[in-house]
């Protein structure tokens, strides 16, 4: 493997960050509330722009300090009223680390710029870009495109995962029309009602509760999850080629692999965003082999092909 440059310092102990974007009224705050009240078993820090819009159940709040609310389910929530960099620094210094961070972008913001900040060298090893999730208000998208065309396109462009929200408010034909007009090759799109996105899509890389939110999500199909295991060392170049060309049915991949030099690496894929980082000492171990979980929607055939390609990356003869 070629030199890894500055990224070599990134450890998987870094906290994954999800940025939630989308035009005004797309359902970002609803999704944030969904996370804050969710039974995901994760300690999640949530940063929001409009603190007043977040509907935190007072009974859930265990403490509040300096504008940061701690919730009974492990979440903390704070307003994004200071600079983003400083707010992130402050959260990172709070006692007890988080499993995940969620940042709600303003409705008129480019979520990619927020994720760019998360990827700055100053956060290397502490924060890890996980995914940009962009919500689209199916009922109001055309209006948003008219009001701010460049912005809506920029937000879509930033998305690793696009959530077509309010799917219950529009006829199926409108969803199809949206896909036909806006979905580009490789774009991962799911439909949702009330911004209920399965936690597995939001928080890959963590042991989430078994998709407890599923019953409300995605009226048409259920997520598929397939696990690939191998005890043979993995050829990284070959693996990268597979990960960069996953079939559209695969929305996420996550896990650990061991390469031919015996190093263990953490793998994250969201849409077209691929992250591979060495596992530092002290990080959780998964034993000697490799394990990848593929999550998405589709027929078995979509996944079988990928599993076969993964097998080819881990041939004992390599």
């Amino acid at each position, binding site marked *: 493997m070629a*030199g890894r440059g500055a990224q070599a310092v990134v450890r998987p102990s870094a906290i994954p960050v999800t940025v939630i974007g989308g035009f005004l009224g797309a359902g970002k705050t609803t999704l944030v509330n969904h996370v804050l009240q969710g039974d995901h078993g994760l300690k999640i820090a949530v940063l929001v722009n409009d603190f007043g819009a977040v509907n935190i159940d007072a009974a859930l709040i265990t403490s509040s300090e300096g504008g940061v609310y701690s919730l009974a389910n492990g979440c903390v929530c704070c307003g994004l009223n200071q600079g983003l960099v400083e707010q992130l620094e402050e959260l990172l*210094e709070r006692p007890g680390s988080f499993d995940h961070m969620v940042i709600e972008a303003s409705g008129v913001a*480019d979520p990619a710029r927020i994720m760019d900040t998360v990827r700055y060298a100053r956060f290397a090893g502490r924060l890890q870009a996980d995914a940009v999730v962009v919500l689209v208000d199916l009922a109001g998208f055309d209006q948003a495109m008219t009001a701010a065309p460049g912005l809506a396109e*920029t937000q879509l462009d930033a998305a690793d995962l696009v959530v077509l929200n309010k799917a219950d408010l529009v006829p199926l034909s409108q969803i199809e029309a949206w896909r036909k007009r806006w979905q580009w090759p490789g774009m991962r799109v799911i439909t949702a009602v009330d911004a209920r996105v399965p936690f597995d899509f939001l928080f890959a890389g963590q042991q989430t509760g078994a998709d407890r939110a599923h019953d409300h999500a995605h009226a048409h199909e259920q997520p598929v999850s397939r696990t690939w295991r191998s005890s043979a060392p993995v050829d990284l170049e070959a693996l990268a080629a597979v990960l960069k060309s996953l079939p559209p049915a695969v929305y996420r991949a996550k896990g650990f692999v061991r390469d031919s030099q015996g190093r263990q690496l953490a793998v994250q894929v969201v849409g077209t965003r691929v992250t591979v980082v060495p596992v530092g000492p002290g990080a959780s171990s998964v034993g000697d082999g490799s394990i990848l979980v593929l999550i998405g929607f589709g027929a078995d055939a979509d996944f079988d092909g990928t599993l076969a390609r993964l097998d080819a990356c881990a041939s004992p003869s390599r």
Partner: protein
Amino acid sequence: MVDADGRLLTGAREVCEMRELYEHRPSHRPRSAYADLALVNGRIYTGDPGLPWCSALAVAGGRIVARGERGDIAHALGAGTRLIDLGGRFAMPGLYDMHTHPDLALAPRYADDLDIGIVDPRPDEVRDAVLAYAAKHPDREWIYGQYFVRYTFRQAGLVPGKAWLDTVMPDRPVALLDRMWGTMMVNSLALERAGITAATPDPTNGYLERDPVTGEPTGLLIDGAYALIHAAMPPTPVPVLRAAYRDGIRYQSARGVVASKYVHVCENRLQALHALDTAGELTVRIEAAISWQDDIFPVRRRWELLTGERHYYRSARLNANAVKFHFDGTVEPRSSYLITPWDGANSGWAGKINLTPEHLADMLWDMDRQGIRVIAHCTGDAASDTFLDAVAEARRRPGGLGVRHQCAHCTILHGSNLRRFRELGVTAEFSPVSWYPSRFVSGARSGYGPERLSRAYNVKGVLEAGGVAVIGTDWPVSPLDPWIALETLVTRANPWGEMEGRFGEPISVEQAIGVMTRNGAWSMDMEHRAGSLEIGKSADVIVLDRDLFAIEPQGNIHATRVDLTFIAGELVHDRLNAESDAVWQGEAPKLW
């Protein structure tokens, strides 16, 4: 010599000759006993406490030779004297803008870089534009410009980056900015020229997008990372810089500026200024400060310039006897270097400095020995404190010339440092055009916290402690218009009434004029030769459309029009007469 409206008539041959004025005149060359120029019937504020007001001035050889009432200059009037009747208008010394960057704002206008000119260019349109530009500019080594949008690449099932750009243009380096200027896409040759490899570390304010497995750069550079590419590109060409400076100077003359410091220059910038100087278009006295760091643009041959080549550019209107550096950051990213930590930070984060104090102390002493002024960007109180310490250290070491160094911006000063400006002979420079109350300023500056903000921009404190305060417009950070600065110094309020509230302590109109004239001259080592209208001093006079002492300052001073600007007796700006033989006629150009 003037018409019934007091306007200058054209064709005065002697005025044309005055453009050659800053060519040297041997001291023993015979002079006319009479004035070249006389201003009469004015309401002239001299800035000289000994005689604050007069109605007439006589000028010979660029200097004031007589002043007072009409009768006091009668002896100097001869047949060849150009007599201008001010018709009762207000006149005063010309203004000093002691920190600005017209090149940074204007050079892109003249650079003729690639501009694709399509709102959402598709990849094939980007390709066509790059190829067309390359064909049209066969001599340009780099293809540089804007813009692409990632969105259209994804829509087409393509990935922007070096792989795609190499298919378009493999044999000339290409760098394209995206619409938001947050990302630069470059080809492999551009990365090669910049020496960027997988081993290149990310800068602190951006990153290289990399292949997740190999770490190889993909050709997308985010935020601060594209400075690595800029550093490898050829410097901005001299003709582009010359056109930029010409616009800036033309504007400044039209707004009554007679002297300015152009902060951050390189060899090409000095050549551009030199070209204007020899063409008779340098109508503002310029002190150009050579960039000490490469953070704005790379300065090739910096050390040659500093050790002596700067003298090549020297004239009556131009010098490069200064350096500029960034000592700390700014308020927005909370990188100002503060004595106590930033509000709201649990970390004790107090900002940072960009040079070690030891580096600074050695540099200051070394520059001081060469007679080079050091201009230090200091927004936080700890930055200016450290800078003043370094000046004190330089004053203790042998060989120093006691140069008047300059603490730029002085956003937050520690109370105990106010007296040190006078004791150490350091200029305290402020940027009032960027801090009148506005939604932007209130939001941006709130990071300092209420206590610090209450003592921000302490011009009054420096003056009361006997120090010298000056202003810099700092364009393009804030507009190049010095009259906004003058009003803001006096009112501390929003000139357009868009926002209530004030920051800090105002000073009087008289004090503010002193800050923007006499103090500027002091900070350029010219107070004995310029900065007020006294006999023997340079005739740097501006004639206004209003009397600054007779109007309500708020909402009015910033809108002042400058009818005439003279520098060393040369008419360089005439607002009202398009036929005038002034170097520039008419209103100030709109630059932003």
